[in-house]
């Protein structure tokens, strides 16, 4: 137990570091990336589930294989690509990289959720006058909302905790996200500022804890639905 209880480290983090900037950057990048990931994964999962696609199994395996590459392998390729398009030090680069990282697994999850929705419900909606897009948005999406929340949380957390991508794709202090910002500020060559590092970690954990508290029901439902089909 600490010998002295104090809030000085929290004050240091808030008042004397660029924590608010790091926090804002992390929220902007990860919320955007997770929303786009969910949107793309839903459409891809729906397509793989409902449409007869030639070589569907091979495509799904290919998507799964992409998830198996170590992120450092993709990192160098994406760094070269983003530099060529002058995207380094931008939100766009970070958002695209997190989508790239999270999308394969998300597509697999969403395909499982769509598979679990009986096609007859969708057909009934179309008999009642819905187009396919209407059936998707008004019938399928509300049914698999818990799954979408689970995918969004997965995408959000994988980006929120990432160090290596955020560190490599940004060099400007104004663009840093929380993990590289903390490492740069508090982990030095000879000294680690544990007090501030731990205080910052607590503050960083609060949003994720709140999100889990409010969305826990959806998350459990979503993960269970993906695991048990039919």
């Amino acid at each position, binding site marked *: 137990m600490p010998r002295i209880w104090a809030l000085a480290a929290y004050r240091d983090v808030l008042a004397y570091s660029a924590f608010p900037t790091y926090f804002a950057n992390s929220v902007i990048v990860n919320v955007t990336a997770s929303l786009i990931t969910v949107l793309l994964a839903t459409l891809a999962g729906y397509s793989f589930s409902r449409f007869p696609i030639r070589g569907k199994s091979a495509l799904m395996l290919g998507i799964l294989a992409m998830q198996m590459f170590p992120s450092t392998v993709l990192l*160098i390729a994406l*760094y070269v690509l983003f530099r060529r398009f002058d995207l*380094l030090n931008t939100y766009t680069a970070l958002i695209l990289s997190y989508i790239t990282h999270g999308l394969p697994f998300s597509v697999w999850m969403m395909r499982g959720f769509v598979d679990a929705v009986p096609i007859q419900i969708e057909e009934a909606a179309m008999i009642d006058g819905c187009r396919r897009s209407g059936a998707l948005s008004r019938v399928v999406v509300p049914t698999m909302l818990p799954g979408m929340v689970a995918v969004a949380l997965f995408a959000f957390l994988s980006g929120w905790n990432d160090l290596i991508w955020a*560190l490599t794709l940004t060099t400007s202090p104004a663009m840093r996200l929380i993990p590289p910002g903390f490492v740069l500020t508090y*982990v030095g060559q*000879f*000294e680690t500022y544990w007090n501030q590092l731990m205080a910052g970690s607590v503050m960083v954990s609060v949003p994720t804890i709140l999100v889990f508290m409010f969305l826990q029901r959806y998350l459990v439902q979503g993960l269970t639905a993906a695991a048990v089909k039919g």
Partner: protein
Amino acid sequence: MTRDSFSAVTGRAAAGRIAAGLASFLAILLFAMPSHAASCSGMPKQITFANWAAAETATAAEVTTSVAAFEKANPCIHVKMIAIPFADMVSQLTVMTIGNNTPDVMEFSSGMPQALAAEGALADLRPFVDKALTSDIQPSMLQDGEANGKLVALPLSLTPHGFWYNKGLMKKAGLNPADPPKTISVLTHDIELVKSKEPNVFPFAMMTSKGAYTVVVMWPWLLSARSGAGKKSHEAPRCSRQARDRGDHARPALVRAPPDRLDGLHVTQDPDRAVRRSRPAVAQDLGARRLS
């Protein structure tokens, strides 16, 4: 005195750019701050400087001030700082090099120049460096900045290493805090005295958390000091390159060394573990400040 940091220049920049950047940069850091400011007619040329010092609390102010003074003295050059954590320096610079985006000037520590030179990222500095500068640097320090026969890095600073001592503890053991040990034999005697009076105290602690750094700097010093080598202040004991290459194996071997070699300094077990289990009597930085 031990060489701790280097500056190095990328191989991709044009020769003129390198010469201007390096000569001016070293001039500002190694010699004196120019007292007058020049003016620039066109747009300032930007050079990128990758380092960890500008991001760390302990060194940020000094580096920022130095760079600002440099820019004032060289208005045609704008320095763009790229902060990279110390532990990620080599990996990040490697990615940047592969991406053809190597910084113009980089801060290095031991072993880093050779790693980056192997990637072809560093230029040979010899054509651009004044002989007056190189002749003022110890040959062994210059050697540490060499790779494949090229001089790819120059010492940026000299870092003296010293002891932090706990005055309260010394007083408790009957020692005079105003007269701390100045020789190894007195240090050994005082440590033994503290140990006899305070058996639960570790009277001596040294940094062991940064493996390679410790092997290069701390352990050779300790062993040389124990064996009586390096008596002159300018003959700081150093590890040979071969020894540094063997570094990973050297440390555990030293920790397991028989008591007769290290017992006088009470380093009979891994100091990291010892310090974790018990409050250290003397520790680096934070611990020393807290205890004094």
